[in-house]
């Protein structure tokens, strides 16, 4: 760039948003911060932060977490950053910028990165108290304060990407939320009609009210001028306490207009392919305020980053051009995956759609295919698993038939295309424009061996994060291809997998953790204290093999006590305020009236909150640590045992009422459920184990969602394995049919022991079954056909467990030394923890949470609820 010889040329950046910050990084990478004075005028009261993740503030991120500005970076590069001091005027003749504080800076190069402002439709009372926009951290703080102080209902104007985020945030704040969208469907820009329908259904199922095809005509206020509702174009009125406008954004080009720079008809500072304004070679515009050479204003961060790179390159006199960008997006809105990529609306000539739609499940997938078979774009709603791969394949002919790419996995033809199918020039991270080739290069040429290293090296995955999964797969594939042994070790202490450790413990009869760590741990971990990952994992292996390897079967004995996760250590489940819940075992869900009365009396006497669980038993919450032994003494006395709700162990075997009462039942499902629950109780495993027994094919016990589920047939029992509820539900697979009682039990013995032996830590049977080579067929070979010849051993391991079972709570209350740990304070055993407090709710108690942020309060204020009467 031109500059007076001798003087240091100055670059002035107006706007320190996401793109502005990226521009500074690009300057630094090109060495321009060393040769130039760089001055930044930042309007907001804080330096650049991650606007894309704005909504995560409501899930606990602090403004500090969102920051994208490393002050160390600003300092080392000598950047002069003026926070809270916006540019007010530009004198292009004299090449001077004046800021609000009166600061005047001469520039050689001026870069405008002023972003956009939220568009508020000109409806009457749009500025009333209770009306907000959704763009900055300050907006969020204001929305949160108002919602907490005086709102129960909130409405969002605009059902686009940001509107849905805003509505989700209002819902998260506890408000009843409405979305008012003028277009006939949600997210009109990204999705088509079919996608909109799937999205609508899912969003409505979440309890948000959606009003499409109606406009906002007026904001209604009360005498004080605060919002009370809004009038809609269909004549109806919607009562609401606050309104958030999210009806699109407009480029902030006023500063540019005022100094005579050309702007587009619908706004945006007109720039050429180098991001230089068409009116003045000394001025650039990048990000959301720029009208790019292809005639578009981009409202996404990835194109803005590319513009920042282009401007920096041009200033450094390198060749670069921004000619347009892809509008692909993947979002997780209110927990629904929505993605669109490439030519999502199918505007190309002669293109055809391949659509899979299941509105019942809220699924919609569409691929746009060109006449020659090229994948041009697509829309995914409800399941965007394949987004990373499909986006990268856009522009090429996919290696498999397009219909197999949209069918759900398991629907016969469903093909999962791995990232290995992608060409090297496929863009994996579109936020930072990183290709598959670059990622492979990071592994091969730059010796990166982990995803964090590759992220640092290439920037891939550090934007919206939607490519991280594919990134991980690529890194692993590349390392394996290079013959690098990927570290599959359990944790920083052991290089072995859980399965390998199990084999070591079993074969060598190693029965203490320290012995295992000192002999088989990584060199640097030997002699140390291990970590929170391997201790419980090894503790679990020792517990499930206890009788066989000569360890105590009681998990609080000796060293084992130090290995247990905190819940197992107190044989109860820790709650958010430091109190515990108590879950006695109720095998098969069958309980006598006397049993119910005992539980009721105990809960009443200790003031506990009671709830029927999803596992057909009763949970009592709010016990203080020192009350656990008193409560259990009474439960054990009445014949109850630990329900292991705290352990990675068998939880419940649910049952339906079955043949005994039900007119459809064909077997006694209750008896079988009780038998199974009693047989496998106390069995420690890699993750929790759940089961259920249904009396006929109607399946009232939901056995097919369990780790091992049993359904009665006219001839016996069908055994299903690998089912799961939770976040990734999976229907169980049929392992064997029409089994007799004895055959059923023997097969479950083998199945469980094979799982415990070979699964990873915290791997449910469902993920295990999908992971192990050969899958269900292999498991069937091993446990039904005994192809490995280990079934006898598996059965004898289970027999040893069953023979040695003892209720751990009964053992504990009979051991004074063990009881000593059940106190809040070692030096004040009679003083309860004052942080544990409760307040009333619906005739019971709940944890007093505001208290937690304060931390302490005088003991006498504590609700009497949990004191024994």
């Amino acid at each position, binding site marked *: 760039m031109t500059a007076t010889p001798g003087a240091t040329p100055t670059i002035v950046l107006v706007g320190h948003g996401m793109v502005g910050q990226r521009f500074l990084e690009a300057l630094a990478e090109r060495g321009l911060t060393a040769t130039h004075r760089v001055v930044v005028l930042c309007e907001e009261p804080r330096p650049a932060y991650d606007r894309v993740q704005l909504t995560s503030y409501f899930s606990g991120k602090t403004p500090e977490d969102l920051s994208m500005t490393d002050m160390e970076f600003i300092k080392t590069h000598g950047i002069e950053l003026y926070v809270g001091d916006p540019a007010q005027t530009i004198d292009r003749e004299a090449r001077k910028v004046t800021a609000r504080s009166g600061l005047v800076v001469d520039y050689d190069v001026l870069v405008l990165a002023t972003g956009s402002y939220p568009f508020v439709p000109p409806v009457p009372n749009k500025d009333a108290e209770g009306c907000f926009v959704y763009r900055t951290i300050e907006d969020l703080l204001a929305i949160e304060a108002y919602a907490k102080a005086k709102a129960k209902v909130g409405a969002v104007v605009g059902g686009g990407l940001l509107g849905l985020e805003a509505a989700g945030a209002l819902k998260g704040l506890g408000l009843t939320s409405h979305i008012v969208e003028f277009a006939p469907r949600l997210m009109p820009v990204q999705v088509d009609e079919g996608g909109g329908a799937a999205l609508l259904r899912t969003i409505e199922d979440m309890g948000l009210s959606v009003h499409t095809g109606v406009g906002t005509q007026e904001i209604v206020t009360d005498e004080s001028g605060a919002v009370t509702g809004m009038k809609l174009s269909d004549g109806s009125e919607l009562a609401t306490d606050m309104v958030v406008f999210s009806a699109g954004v407009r480029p902030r080009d006023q500063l540019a207009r005022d100094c005579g720079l050309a702007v587009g008809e619908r706004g945006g500072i007109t720039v050429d392919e180098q991001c230089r304004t068409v009116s003045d070679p000394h001025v650039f515009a990048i990000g959301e305020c720029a009208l790019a050479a292809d005639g578009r204003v981009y409202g996404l961060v990835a194109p803005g980053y590319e513009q920042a790179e282009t401007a920096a390159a041009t200033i450094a006199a390198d060749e670069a051009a921004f000619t347009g960008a892809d509008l692909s997006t993947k979002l997780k809105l209110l927990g629904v995956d929505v993605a669109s990529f490439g030519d999502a609306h199918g505007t190309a000539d002669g293109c055809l759609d391949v659509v899979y739609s299941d509105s019942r499940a809220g699924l919609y997938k569409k691929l746009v295919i060109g006449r020659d078979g090229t994948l041009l774009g697509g829309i995914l709603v409800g399941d965007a698993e394949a987004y990373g791969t499909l986006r990268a394949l856009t522009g090429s002919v996919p290696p498999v038939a397009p219909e197999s790419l949209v069918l759900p996995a398991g629907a016969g033809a469903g093909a999962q295309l791995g990232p290995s199918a992608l060409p090297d020039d496929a863009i994996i991270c579109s936020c930072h424009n990183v290709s598959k080739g670059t990622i492979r290069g990071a592994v091969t040429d730059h010796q990166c061996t982990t995803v964090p290293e590759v992220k640092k090296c290439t920037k891939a995955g550090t934007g919206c994060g939607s490519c991280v999964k594919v990134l991980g797969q690529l890194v692993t594939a590349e390392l394996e291809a290079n013959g690098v042994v990927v570290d599959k070790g359990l944790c920083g202490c052991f290089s072995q997998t859980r399965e390998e450790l199990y084999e070591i413990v079993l074969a060598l009869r190693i029965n203490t953790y320290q012995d295992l760590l000192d002999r088989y741990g990584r060199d640097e971990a030997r002699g140390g*204290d291990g970590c929170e990952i391997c201790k419980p994992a090894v503790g679990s292996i020792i517990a499930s093999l206890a009788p066989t390897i000569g360890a105590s079967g009681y998990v609080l004995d000796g060293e084992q006590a130090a290995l247990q996760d905190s819940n197992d250590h107190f044989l109860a489940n820790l709650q958010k305020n430091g109190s515990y819940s108590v879950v006695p075992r109720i095998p098969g869900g069958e309980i006598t009236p006397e049993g119910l009365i005992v539980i009721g009396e105990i809960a009443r006497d200790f003031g506990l909150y009671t709830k029927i669980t999803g596992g057909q038993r009763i949970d009592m919450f709010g016990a203080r640590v020192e009350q656990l032994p008193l409560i259990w003494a009474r439960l054990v006395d009445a014949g109850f045992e630990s329900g292991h709700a705290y352990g990675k162990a068998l939880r419940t075997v649910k049952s339906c009422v079955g043949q005994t009462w039900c007119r459809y039942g064909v077997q006694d499902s209750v008896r079988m459920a009780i038998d199974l629950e009693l047989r496998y109780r106390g069995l420690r495993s890699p993750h929790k184990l759940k089961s259920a027994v249904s009396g006929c094919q109607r399946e009232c016990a939901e056995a097919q969602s369990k780790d091992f589920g049993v359904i009665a047939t006219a001839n016996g029992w069908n055994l299903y394995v690998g089912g799961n509820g939770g976040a990734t539900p999976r229907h169980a697979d049929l392992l064997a049919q029409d089994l007799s009682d004895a055959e059923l039990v023997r097969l479950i013995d083998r199945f469980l022991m094979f799982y415990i032996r070979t699964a990873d830590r915290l791997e449910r049977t469902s993920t295990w079954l999908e992971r192990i080579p050969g899958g269900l067929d292999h498991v069937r070979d091993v446990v039904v056909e005994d192809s490995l010849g280990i079934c006898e051993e598996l059965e004898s391991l289970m027999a040893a467990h069953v023979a040695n079972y003892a209720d751990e709570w009964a053992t504990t209350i009979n051991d004074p030394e063990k009881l000593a740990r059940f106190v809040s304070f070692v030096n004040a055993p009679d003083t309860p923890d004052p942080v544990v407090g409760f307040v009333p709710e619906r005739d019971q108690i709940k944890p007093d949470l505001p208290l937690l942020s304060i931390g302490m309060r005088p003991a006498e204020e504590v609700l009497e609820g949990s004191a024994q009467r």
Partner: protein
Amino acid sequence: MTLAPETTDLKIQLRLDSPEGDWFTVCDLNRLVPGRGVAALLPDGRQVALFRDRKGELYAIDNRDPFGGAAVLSRGLIGSHQGRPFVASPLLKQRFDLLDGRCLDDETVRVATYEVRTA
């Protein structure tokens, strides 16, 4: 309970941050299982989490989990990372260095530490 006499005599003491820097006696050393912690109440109402590692070293940090708010750090699992001892909170598993109280998973967070000795 049978206890070896030489350990019953040893008491765990904490240095209070009062101007006098008094040592406050908490409990017998043998109340601490190696690899685990206990909570203690200070005269001013604050709570301390005390730990003992397998080599017998003692550590003391504030008992409150700064993320969740509950006073439960004493119930976490301890471990060592690159030679430094840490405790993992039983609530959401953030780890805290037992020597300087720094959170290993969020450098902006730190809990108080206390000087501890046996006498």
